[in-house]
């Protein structure tokens, strides 16, 4: 593939010029004539009866066009995967983010003033905030009509015989690890504009990362609202960050639809930063009990994991993160016997959503921390234990994943070399090194019935190419990567390619920007469409030039014979000739690519992805014993990406994921007290700044995945998956303390150091 002209090159991001000049239009920047501004009133209690809700004064405020409450939601409509979430809550609030009333007004200021005029009286009820408490018999019920707070979503994976393996293991370790709520912190807050036409068809200006699924959600909602069979069009504005936060629809979107229906005017919602913190759904927090064992040679024998997830008061994708947690639990390293159970429990806390990695970071934190404990017990270097058990191409994992390409050992070698692992490990001088690996889906993920993406390509008379793709651009660069793939196949300049990716009226179906699938799935879809249109063009060009199609090629927009270089014609000329001949035609092609991966069977087994992405992170830290501060001295992130279609954009995914992972490891946490968020702003929520950037190397390992477009696999999520355990392991190497709950704050490190000092004194005194 040495003669590639566009793929594999550092091509600048196609939307970057617009973004650096301030020209890109985000939902914040959109205005529609006659547009109203919406606002939402949230309940003030984590659990309370609503005794009185009086909107009269708000309705009378000049400029207010509509006020709605639960009484205005037709047919008891509820959304979310368990259909347990009404867009406006009546009678009772179950979390502090419960929406109880909404207004539409001629300005944002009047909308805000109207919310102040709504009178509410509550009777506070006892809440339940600890999932372990909520699981107990007799615990207060979050949803009184349900018999238990435990969701009817039994996650259970059993492979082999864990009990037998335990008995045969030479070394076994067990421990419990906890992870916290963290939030996406998209710089652009959430928002939408709902617009109805005269036929009651809905257009939604949106920043969703799942246009086709959101369209389906709205169609369902319209049916419930008395508008069955109406059309829904979604137009995505430039999206100010996604990271999973826009993978589900939210109450505000349904509220916008209801207000637009009621007022017959476009209604816009834009979240304040405060709302963005408390009213969007964070990463699922977790409590994980894990046991792992190995034989006397350091071969892993079993892995047993029990997990409890705080579901919050309603259900979104957070409750399904165990489906991804299973992947590292069953298939990170070679482990023959696996048992995993997870329970999601309703509480009066916030409810969780997808966030980059989708459960994988939580599970990998437990697995990789525990693995270091096992290495110590077995008397092995943690790297040695990992290397002996590393995944390899050709494996069939216990969960029935078919491993095709796998560069885990190569990534490990990069980390060991670049970190000087052997020189730095175990020096015990307050500096230490740690590593952790990852597996993630790299070739789509069949979590819905379809994992597909469509592409339509249209050529004009001048050799310009319009590519209509289902793939969503959320900043990651899908638009550029798709343009590169099409340019490469068609043999045209990338500047001649126009990618249209933001309108469901034009763009084919796609399951969304999730599961690190876009380059692989949308890339293969674009590749297929480009190949089809190339064949059509070559066929007519060959006919015109008296050549066989197989002997023709296109480069730089010129069609030529490979036998006789004299025979050539600009592509644009070929296109015009065909168009303006009798019975003329224009070229279009479409291709829908649905990867040959499998839904899980009832036992949660099946080849979820066509290929799997691997990576190994290594880190050197320095721990200040006086303050508990952890400083990252060196960070190596080595990733098996199949093939880097655009190394610069790919490195951007690794750097961005890595720092998000560092935030997860060392600082970020949403502090909830009895259901109330205490640090919902950028001052108190410690998202990393430029000053938190350590010396970092993004290392690309190419393994040429046969099923990938030009050999590529996914890279969107992997960058943050192994970060926290790599850092936790390095801290242990530096100062001998194991932090089991994230984030690893200086307070926790200091406390652990003090406890260790006391224990050491106790031991030496005995």
């Amino acid at each position: 593939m040495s003669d590639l002209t566009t793929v594999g090159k550092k091509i600048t991001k196609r939307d970057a010029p617009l973004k650096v000049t301030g020209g890109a239009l985000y939902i914040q920047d959109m205005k529609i004539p006659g547009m109203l501004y919406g606002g939402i009133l949230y309940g003030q209690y984590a659990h309370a009866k609503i005794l009185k809700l009086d909107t009269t004064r708000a309705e009378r405020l000049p400029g207010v066009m509509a006020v709605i409450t639960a009484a205005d939601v037709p047919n008891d409509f509820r959304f979310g995967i368990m259909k347990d979430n009404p867009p406006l809550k009546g009678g009772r609030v179950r979390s502090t983010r419960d929406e109880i009333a909404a207004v539409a007004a001629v300005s944002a200021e009047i909308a805000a003033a109207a919310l102040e005029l709504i009178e509410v009286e509550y009777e506070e009820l006892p809440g339940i905030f600890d999932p372990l408490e909520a699981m107990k018999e007799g615990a207060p019920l979050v949803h009184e009509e349900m018999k238990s707070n435990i969701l009817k979503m039994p996650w259970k994976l059993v492979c082999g015989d864990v009990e037998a393996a335990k008995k045969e293991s030479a070394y076994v370790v067990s421990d419990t690890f906890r992870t916290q709520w963290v939030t996406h912190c998209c710089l652009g807050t959430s928002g939408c504009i709902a617009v109805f036409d005269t036929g009651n068809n809905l257009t939604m200006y949106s920043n969703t990362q799942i246009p086709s699924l959101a369209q389906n959600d709205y169609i369902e909602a319209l049916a419930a609202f008395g508008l069955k069979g109406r059309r829904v069009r979604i137009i995505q504005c430039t999206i100010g960050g996604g990271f999973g936060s826009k993978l589900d629809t939210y109450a505000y979107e349904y509220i916008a639809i209801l207000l637009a229906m009621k007022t017959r005017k476009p209604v816009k919602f834009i979240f304040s930063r405060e709302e963005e913190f408390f009213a969007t759904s964070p990463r699922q927090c977790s409590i994980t009990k894990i046991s792992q064992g190995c034989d006397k040679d350091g071969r892993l024998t079993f892995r047993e994991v029990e997990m409890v997830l705080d579901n919050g008061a309603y259900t979104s994708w957070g409750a399904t993160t165990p489906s991804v947690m299973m992947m590292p639990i069953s298939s990170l390293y070679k482990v023959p016997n696996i048992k995993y159970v997870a329970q999601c429990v309703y509480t009066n806390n916030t409810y969780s959503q997808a966030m980059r990695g989708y459960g994988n970071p939580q599970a990998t934190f437990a697995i990789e921390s525990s693995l270091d404990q096992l290495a110590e017990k077995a008397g092995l270097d943690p790297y040695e234990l990992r290397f002996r058990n590393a995944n390899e191409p050709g494996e069939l994992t216990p969960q029935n994943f078919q491993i095709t390409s796998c560069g885990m050992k190569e990534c490990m070698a990069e980390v060991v070399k670049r970190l000087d692992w052997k020189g730095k490990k175990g020096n015990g001088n307050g500096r230490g090194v740690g590593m952790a690996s990852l597996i993630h889906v790299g070739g789509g993920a069949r979590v819905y019935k379809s994992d597909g993406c469509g592409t339509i390509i249209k050529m004009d008379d001048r050799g310009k190419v319009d590519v209509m793709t289902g793939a969503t651009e959320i900043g990651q660069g899908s638009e550029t990567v798709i343009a590169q793939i099409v340019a490469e196949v068609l043999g045209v300049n990338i500047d001649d390619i126009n990618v249209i990716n933001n309108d469901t009226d034009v763009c084919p179906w796609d399951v969304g920007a999730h599961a690190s699938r876009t380059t692989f799935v949308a890339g293969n879809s674009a590749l297929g469409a480009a190949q089809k249109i190339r064949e059509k063009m070559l066929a007519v060009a060959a006919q015109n030039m008296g050549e066989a199609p197989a002997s023709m090629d296109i480069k730089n927009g010129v069609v030529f014979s490979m036998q006789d270089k004299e025979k050539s014609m600009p592509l644009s000329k070929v296109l015009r000739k065909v168009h303006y001949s009798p019975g003329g035609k224009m070229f279009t092609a479409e291709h829908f690519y649905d990867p040959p991966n499998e839904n899980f069977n009832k036992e949660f087994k099946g080849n979820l992805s066509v290929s799997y992405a691997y990576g190994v992170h290594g880190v050197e830290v320095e721990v200040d014993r006086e303050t508990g501060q952890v400083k990252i001295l060196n960070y190596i992130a080595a990733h098996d990406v199949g093939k880097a279609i655009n190394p610069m954009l790919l490195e951007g995914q690794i750097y961005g994921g890595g720092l998000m992972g560092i935030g997860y490891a060392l600082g970020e946490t949403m502090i909830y007290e009895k259901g109330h968020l205490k640090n919902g702003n950028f001052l108190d929520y410690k998202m990393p700044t430029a000053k938190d950037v350590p010396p970092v190397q993004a290392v690309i390992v190419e393994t040429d995945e046969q099923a990938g477009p030009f050999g590529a696999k996914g890279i969107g999520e992997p960058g943050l998956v192994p970060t926290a355990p790599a850092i936790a392991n390095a801290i242990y190497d530096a100062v001998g303390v194991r932090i089991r709950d994230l984030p690893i704050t200086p307070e926790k490190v200091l406390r652990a150091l003090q406890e260790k000092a006391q224990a050491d004194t106790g031991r030496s005194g005995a």
Partner: protein
Amino acid sequence: MKREITFKLNNEERKVEVDPGWTLLYVLREVLELTGTKEGCGYGECGACTVIIDGRSVNSCLYPILEAEGRAVTTIEGLRAASGELHPLQRAFVNEGAVQCGFCTAGMIMSAKALIDENEKPTEDDIKDNIAGNLCRCTGYVQIIDAIKTAAGGGRT
């Protein structure tokens, strides 16, 4: 009560009727429809609204519009040359992969401009200090720092 104020915006003299309670950001976005400057938080913590006033980078979401009287304000829309050519910082952000979702980009570039206008050879620490008030969730800042270094080094990328 509206008041008229006069200030220089992107090298043009502007007269604007303002409500004394408005911020500069509000006037830029809602009155003058220069939406390149973004609001990420509205309380001066994210830097997305950064503009340059008399050579200094400022969070326009906290800046009272009346304070702008007689001052020179530069926003992202004022950075390109009259020919349409990108400013070296803009070019470097494009070429170094410093842009992902782009919501922080305008503010980031304006902070960086204030820095390199004053300090032609900033160190990596200078750059990090300078943009510490500009949050970015996508990039991990690495390529942003590279872009600022490149632009400061003469802008040849």
